């Protein structure tokens, strides 16, 4: 989307041997897992894939536009999960006393939306409070400084949550109390389908926003050339908070819509963060479209590992695969779209 040529993403993939091999291997792996474990595993990996993609898109956006390797992305996920819990459970309780079909269908969306709004606000606050002063002080060594700053944020948010809310788990069994749907003989819980659609819709909305609106174009301009964008009258002090807020909101929404899978507790964000980073590194730092495809690739790899090796090796096998991939294509399979992957 930010390339200098007008070739489409798919044309670029067919030109790219590494990407083709990885995608074919992923499809084979997905089919293999499906044959060995039944189609439910495939559905599983599609749902998780959507979520990893949503998280990874936020990471890629923040890195592409602000050059911030965001390590506190998982904490946005955590905040979203907590917000959804605290919005949803009171409504749920009152619904049990006086049932209301409409409200019980809408309540989950309310919770997820609330998480998104809190994410937006949190993103703006963090950007203004922390990244802005750092940017004012110095631009040298920015990537590393920003990275460490997000590490500090993550540390504060995780431990601050433990301090205020305690280390206990807060979860819900499900959002919608309805029968699972049938797909090709597979029973899929409505929550999973909803989570998948929320991620797809959010990604599509973001895509539309970046491609078709004036502000979105401004964001892309900043990611291509900061100085040039400034000369065209784009206000960086508006673009940076906006980008950061968008990414935080996306992560918070995915945390909220996955509340039935990941209960809310202070360090819940670590695993999503790990996999989102894994997607972004494998797809190419800052490459937003690559992150979407990468999300599904990683999810398939993860499901296959669980299926064939054991869930305990979930951390080990993907890393091994990643090391092999990065040995061959150091800037990720779809290529990094950040200015200067080599050290500058």
């Amino acid at each position, binding site marked *: 989307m930010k390339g200098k040529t007008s070739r489409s993403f798919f044309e670029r993939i067919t030109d790219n041997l590494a990407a083709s091999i990885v995608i074919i291997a992923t499809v084979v792996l997905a089919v293999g897992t499906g044959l060995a474990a039944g189609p439910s595993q495939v559905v599983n990996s599609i749902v998780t894939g959507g979520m990893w993609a949503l998280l990874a898109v936020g990471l890629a956006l923040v890195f592409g536009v602000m050059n911030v*390797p965001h390590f506190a992305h998982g904490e946005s996920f955590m905040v979203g999960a907590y917000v959804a819990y605290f919005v949803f459970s009171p409504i749920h309780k009152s619904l049990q006393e006086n049932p209301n079909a409409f409200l019980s269908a809408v309540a989950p969306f309310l919770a997820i939306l609330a998480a998104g709004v809190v994410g937006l606000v949190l993103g703006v606050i963090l950007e203004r409070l*922390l990244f802005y*002063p*750092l940017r004012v*002080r*110095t631009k040298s*060594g920015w*990537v*590393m*400084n920003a*990275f*460490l*700053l997000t*590490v*500090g*944020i*993550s*540390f*504060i948010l995780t*431990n*601050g949550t*433990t*301090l205020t809310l305690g*280390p206990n788990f807060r979860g819900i069994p499900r959002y919608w109390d309805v029968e699972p749907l049938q797909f090709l003989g597979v029973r899929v819980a409505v929550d999973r389908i909803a989570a998948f659609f929320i991620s797809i819709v959010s990604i599509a909305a973001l895509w539309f926003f970046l491609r078709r609106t004036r502000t979105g174009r401004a964001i892309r301009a900043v990611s291509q050339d900061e100085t040039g964008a400034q000369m065209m009258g784009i206000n960086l002090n508006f673009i940076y908070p906006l980008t950061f807020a968008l990414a935080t909101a996306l992560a918070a929404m995915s945390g909220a819509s996955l509340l039935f899978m990941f209960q809310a507790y202070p360090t819940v964000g*670590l695993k999503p963060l*790990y996999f989102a*980073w*894994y997607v972004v*590194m494998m797809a190419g*730092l800052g490459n937003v479209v690559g992150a979407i495809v990468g999300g599904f690739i990683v999810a398939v790899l993860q499901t296959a590992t669980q299926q064939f090796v054991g869930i*305990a*090796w*979930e*951390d*080990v096998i993907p*890393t*091994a695969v*990643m*090391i092999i991939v*990065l*040995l061959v294509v*150091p*800037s990720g399979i779809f290529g990094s779209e950040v200015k*200067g*992957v*080599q*050290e*500058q």
Partner: protein
Amino acid sequence: MNMEQKNNAEAWGAAKAALEKIGFSPLGLLLLVIAAILPLVPPFNQEHMIRWLIMGAFLAAQSVAFDFTSGYIGVVNFGFAAVLGLGAYTSAILANTSPVLMVQPGISPWIGIWVGALLAGLVGLGLGWLTLRLRGIFAAVMAWFVGIALMGVVRNLTDLTRGPLGMNPQSLLDTTANRPYYYIILAMMLVVYIALRLVTRSHFGLAFKAIGQNIEAARASGINPTKYRVLNFAMSCMFAGWLGGFYAHYFGSLTPQTLMHTSKTVEVLALAYIGGRGSMWGGMLVAFPFVFLIEFLRSNLTELPGLHLVLYGALMVLVMIFYPNGVAGLYTWLVSKIRSARSKKE
């Protein structure tokens, strides 16, 4: 008389220069002597206080090894704790004689520590070779991934490590007293500091600094950045593994969660940055009071778990944004102020 004074001044100057070579100012030496006699003086001679001192020296040594990489070549080793854990587990497994585990080589911990260090160094070498051709952030994130993977391996190889149940490696000394251990870790801290200081004083140090400041300029002046960065990274990892060996044979209990988790790396990172990046001694100085502060908070505010960690993070963020030179920078600033005031008087 005059002659004698001159001689004294010369001797003082020579001694100072010799100290300077291994990275100590007279004040630093004084602090070191204080650290050495501290466990003999009440109230610090109580066993739990000595434990805190040991923790302080252990963290201090870690922060030196960490700052050697992050402060000089600008690469943050995010898998530092995991590499340290690798050293610890290697040494512990080599020393193991317990029939619960699969292998029982029973090698003395005094030897095993070195094997652990060597292995950690090799892992650092491989990891650095793989990632340090790219921007520093790649190395940081990859080190993080490898760290998580190492932790996963340790958790899963239950025949060797008992997984999350934890190992109980044999101890280094036949004593339950803490004081001997304190002197061992203090000596190890000094070895790490002096060794790395000597490296940074050599032409390697110049290359490291050049790379950290401007990699393109360094490359233009004929330095091979990858070579020096990998070397630096491997050295830091080696010392991490070495320190891990001490941890294993002192605390006598190893679990992947308490040793190799990312939050452990963040603790060291925070110390190194609060101390002042690129100074190496800053983190070492800060570690001791910090451990005391944190243990004090932890034991007195039990109803507020995690407060000390929030303070850690907040302090780190503040230093990062507003005072990047940390405590070491503060010291340099003070010294220059005093000097200029003195010269004005004259």
